[in-house]
C-alpha cells in the first residue's frame, strides 16, 4: 500500500501516530502525480516547491492545524495569492491574484498543503472538462472518456490518487456529475454554507463550493473546515456548523427517503436506474422508509437553469475587459475595439456561447419571456422540493443520465452536452445540498447516486451516504488495475 492511495483520515491517523511524516506523504503524492499525470492531465499547475516546504514545516510543527501537512488540490477557479489562477481560460492565463479564497485560506490555516491547481471547463462552463482552454482531462477509469465537468480535474485527481481530497464548485452539477463519472464522493453544500469569496463567479445565485473525497468520512472532515459564515460573503449564512463527523454512523432506521419518479424516466440509462433502485432496496433493508414521490416541475429545471445561469454569467464575465488584468488586445486604437477584441481572443467558444445566451435572455424585449419567466419557474421548482421535504428527510436519485462518455463524443452539440446536467440542476435552482456517491459499476464505469437534502442539512446527507458505504461495502472505488 502506497501512502498516496490512502484517504485523508487514514493519513491523519498515520501522521498522528508518527508512522508517516508529512514530507513522506507529500513525496508520495508527487511520485504518484509524476506517474499518472501524463495520462490523466488533472492539473493546470503544480506548486511543488512550496508544498514540500510546507510539509517539512508541518513536520517541525511550524505549520500546525487540524490537517497539518495533509495534501489537497484546488480547482483553478479558487484564487490563490501569488499563484496563477486561470479558470482554464486564455483570458486569465497570466493572472496572479493578490488574495486567497476563503475556503482555500481555511484549509491553509488548518495546515493543509496545496499541491496544485486543477483543470476544469473554462470559467466552469461545461460538463466534460473538454472546454478547458489548455487541455482535456481524462477519466482515470477509462482514459478515452471524459471525467465530467466542470470540476473534472478535481474529480480525476482524487480518483487517480493524485490528491486525497480537492475542492471544486457546483453551479449546475459541476461537483456531483464529475464525482459520479470518476467514482468518488462529491458534495455540493447548501447555497450559503461555504463562502464564495475568492472563487471566480460563474452564476452567483447558483455557485457553491464543495468537496471531492475518496470516502464520506473525509467529506465530513473537510466540511468541518470550510463551512460557516464569512463576513466577506453576504450570502454566506449565519447557520450553526455542526461537527459533520458526528453524523458518521449507519443508523438510518426510520429515515424517510423520497424517490422522485421524474428522475427515473426517459433519457436516463436503464442500467443506472437499476443500480440506484438496488441501492434504495438496500436502504429499505436497513430500515429506511422509501416512497416514490413527484417533483412535477423537474423537466423545466434545465431550460430555466440555462437562462438564469447564463444571464448571471453574462454580467459576471463582463469585467474581463482588458483594463485591469487578463488578456488584452494591445493593437486596438479605441476602447470599444479593445474590449471586444480582448474578450473574443480571451474566451473560448462555450464561454462566448453562454455570454451570448445570457445577454440575449436579459436584453430589452426578451427579459420577461426568458429571464423573468425562468425566475418564476425557479420558485415552482423550489416549492416542489419544499413539499417533499415536509414529509421526507432525503431524496435519492441518479446523479447523471449516463456514465462517463467518450472524449469528443458530445463536442459541437451544446444542447446534448447541457442535457448531462438534467438530474443535477434542480438542486442548484432550489439552493439545496446534494451529494453524489458511487453506488456500483456499469460496464466497468462508476455509477453515481445522488442524495438531496433539506437546506443546511448536509449532516443527514453525510449520515445516509456513510450508511450506504457501510451497507454496500462500496467505498474508495479504485479504477481498474492497468488502466493507469
Amino acid at each position, binding site marked *: 500500500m502506497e501512502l498516496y492511495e490512502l484517504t485523508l483520515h487514514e493519513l491523519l491517523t498515520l501522521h498522528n501516530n508518527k508512522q508517516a511524516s508529512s514530507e513522506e506523504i507529500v513525496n508520495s503524492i508527487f511520485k504518484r502525480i509524476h506517474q499518472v499525470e501524463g495520462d490523466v492531465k488533472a492539473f493546470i499547475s503544480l506548486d511543488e516547491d512550496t508544498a514540500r516546504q510546507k510539509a517539512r514545516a508541518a513536520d517541525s510543527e511550524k505549520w500546525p492545524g487540524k490537517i497539518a501537512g495533509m495534501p489537497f488540490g484546488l480547482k483553478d477557479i479558487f484564487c490563490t495569492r501569488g499563484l496563477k489562477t486561470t479558470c482554464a481560460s486564455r483570458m*486569465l492565463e497570466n493572472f496572479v*491574484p493578490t*488574495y486567497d479564497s476563503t475556503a482555500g485560506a481555511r484549509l491553509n490555516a488548518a495546515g493543509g498543503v496545496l499541491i496544485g491547481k486543477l483543470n476544469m471547463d473554462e470559467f466552469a462552463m461545461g460538463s466534460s472538462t473538454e472546454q478547458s482552454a489548455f487541455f482535456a482531462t481524462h477519466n482515470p477509469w477509462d482514459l478515452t472518456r471524459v471525467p465530467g465537468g466542470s470540476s473534472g480535474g478535481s474529480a480525476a485527481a482524487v480518483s487517480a490518487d493524485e490528491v486525497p481530497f480537492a475542492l471544486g464548485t457546483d453551479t449546475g452539477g459541476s461537483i456531483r456529475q464529475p464525482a459520479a463519472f470518476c467514482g468518488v464522493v462529491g458534495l455540493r453544500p447548501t447555497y450559503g454554507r461555504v463562502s464564495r469569496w475568492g472563487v471566480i463567479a460563474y452564476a452567483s445565485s447558483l455557485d457553491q463550493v464543495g468537496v471531492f473525497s475518496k470516502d464520506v468520512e473525509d467529506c465530513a472532515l473537510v466540511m468541518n473546515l470550510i463551512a460557516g459564515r464569512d463576513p466577506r*460573503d*453576504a450570502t454566506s449564512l449565519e447557520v450553526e456548523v455542526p461537527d459533520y463527523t458526528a453524523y458518521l454512523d449507519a443508523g438510518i432506521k426510520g429515515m424517510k427517503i423520497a424517490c422522485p419518479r421524474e428522475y427515473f424516466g426517459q433519457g436516463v440509462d436503464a442500467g443506472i436506474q437499476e443500480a440506484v433502485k438496488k441501492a434504495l432496496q438496500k436502504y429499505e433493508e436497513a430500515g429506511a422508509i422509501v416512497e416514490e414521490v413527484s417533483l412535477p416541475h423537474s423537466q423545466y429545471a434545465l431550460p430555466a437553469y440555462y437562462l438564469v445561469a447564463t444571464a448571471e454569467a453574462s*454580467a459576471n464575465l*463582463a469585467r474581463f475587459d482588458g483594463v485591469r488584468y487578463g488578456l488584452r488586445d494591445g493593437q486596438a*486604437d479605441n476602447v*470599444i475595439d479593445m474590449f471586444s477584441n480582448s474578450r473574443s481572443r480571451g474566451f473560448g467558444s462555450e464561454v462566448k456561447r453562454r455570454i451570448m445566451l445570457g445577454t440575449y435572455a*436579459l436584453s430589452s424585449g426578451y427579459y420577461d419571456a426568458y429571464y423573468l419567466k425562468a425566475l418564476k419557474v425557479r420558485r415552482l421548482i423550489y416549492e416542489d422540493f419544499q413539499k417533499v421535504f415536509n414529509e421526507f428527510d432525503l431524496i435519492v436519485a441518479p446523479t447523471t443520465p449516463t456514465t462517463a462518455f467518450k472524449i469528443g463524443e458530445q463536442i459541437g452539440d451544446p444542447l446534448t452536452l447541457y442535457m448531462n446536467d438534467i438530474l443535477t440542476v434542480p438542486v442548484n435552482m432550489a439552493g439545496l445540498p446534494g451529494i453524489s456517491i458511487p453506488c456500483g459499476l456499469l460496464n466497468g464505469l462508476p455509477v453515481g447516486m445522488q442524495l438531496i437534502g433539506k437546506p443546511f442539512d448536509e449532516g443527514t446527507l453525510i449520515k445516509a451516504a456513510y450508511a450506504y458505504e457501510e451497507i454496500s461495502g462500496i467505498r474508495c472505488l479504485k479504477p481498474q488495475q492497468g488502466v493507469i
Partner: protein
Amino acid sequence: MGKDYEVVIGLEVHAELKTDSKIFCGCSTAFGAEPNTQVCPVCSGFPGMLPVLNQKVVELAIITGLALNSKIPDYCKFDRKNYFYPDLPKAYQISQFDLPICMGGYLDIEIDGDKKRIGITRAHMEEDAGKLVHQGNITSTTFSLVDLNRSGVPLLEIVSEPDMRSASEARAYLEKLRAILLFAGVSDCKMQEGSLRCDANVSVRPVGETRLGARAEIKNLNSFRSLERAIEFEARRQIEAIEDGEAIIQETRTWDEDKQATRSMRSKEEAHDYRYFPEPDLPPLRISHEWVERLRTVMPELPDQAQIRLQESFGLPSYDAAILTLTPESLAFFDKCVELYPQPKMVSNWMMGELSRLLNQNNLEISDCRFGPAELARLLTLIDEGTISGKMAKGIFEDMFASGKPPDQIIAEKGMTQISDQDTLIKVIDEVIAANPTVVEDYRNGKEKALGFLVGQIMKATKGQANPGVVNTLLKERL
C-alpha cells in the same frame, strides 16, 4: 423664451452619501488622494470579489427619504446595471432598479414669493464609477488613464418629476435639495468635488399641450450657473429647431462651458440596453417601521422647519429666513449670533448685507469666514453701547473679514473709538454753534431740520467719531 412654448424640466441629482468607507468595501472615500491609492480588489472589480453593503449608506438614504417626504418601502433590493466603460470595473454598476429605497416625495421651492411644490419620483442607492482622465483634448487624445479611487463611493440618485418650468425654478429646486441634504447631514454637496452632480432633462412643448416633448438629457452641469445657462440654451435651441420644422431627438447632450452651449454626445454606438437584473451577491433589505422611526427621531432640523422658526420666533421676513437657511452653517452662525446679541433683524441685516456681499466678492462660503458669530455680536454690541458708530462698524467689519481680528483689537489698533466724552464734545458743539448763528436762529424759531445740519457739522469736525446720541442730547441742551 417665446410666449407660445413652455419648458419642462426634471432633474436627476447624484449626491455622494457621507460615509467614511465605500459602499461595498472598506476603502476610504476621502477626496483628493493620489490615483488608485484608495482601491482594493473589491472596488477594482477583481475576479472572485464580493460586495458587502455598508449599513450607514442605507441609513443615510432612509434619512434623505424622510427629509424629502418619500415613502420608505419595507422591502428593497439591488440590481445590476450592465454597460461597458473603462471606469466601471465590473462592467456593471450595482444600483437599484424597480424597488428603490425611496419612493415618491416632494420639496417646496419659493420663486418671487410664490411657493411651488416639486415632486420627487424616487431615490436609489448606487455605487459611483472611477474617473477617466483624457490626455489632452477629448477629441484629439489617443489614450486615457483610469483612476478607481471614486469607484464604489456611495451615491444616492434623486430623480425629480418633470415639474419645473424655468431655469430659475430648476436652480431653486437644486438649491433647496442641497440645503435639505446638508441639513439632514447626509452629504457634503460639494459640486466642485463632484459630491453633488446634476443632470437635467429638458423638453419644450406648446403651451396648452399636455404630452411631454422629446427630451434632451444634459450632463456635466457642475454649478448652479451652468445648470441655469444650459437649460436656457437648450430650451432656446429646441424651440428654434421646432420652429424650423425639425424634430427633437431624444438624446444625451453635454454642457460645454467654454462655448456656453449644449452639444450632442451621441456616438456611433447603439442605444443603451442596461439589462438590469437582481444582484445575486447582495441579500435584499427589509426595512422595519421601527428602524425608520428610530432614524426619524435623530433627524436634525430641516430648512423648512428652520425657516418657520426664524419667521415665528424671531419675526424675520420669509425672504431673510429663506436665505439664512440655505446652509446649516449660515443658520448656525445666525443662531449663535442672536444668542449673544438678541436683535434678530439686525443680525440678519448684517449677514445678508455686509457678510454675504464680502463672501460673494471673494467667492467664499460662510465656513471660510475668518471670524465667528461672537465677533459679529460684539461688533453690534459696540454700536449699541455707543463705542462706535454704525458707519465706523462697516469699516471695522471689512477689517475683521480681511484679518480675522476681533473688533475690539481693530478699534484699539486704529484708535477709532467714538468720542463720548462730554467735555470734548461740548467744546466742539460750542464752536459749531458759534460758527453757524443763522442756523441756530432757525432752530430756535422752530425749524427742527436745522438740528440735523448742526449734528452733521459736529460729526464732520470730529471725523465721524462723535457719539451721535451724546451729541444730540448735548446739542439740545446748549441750544
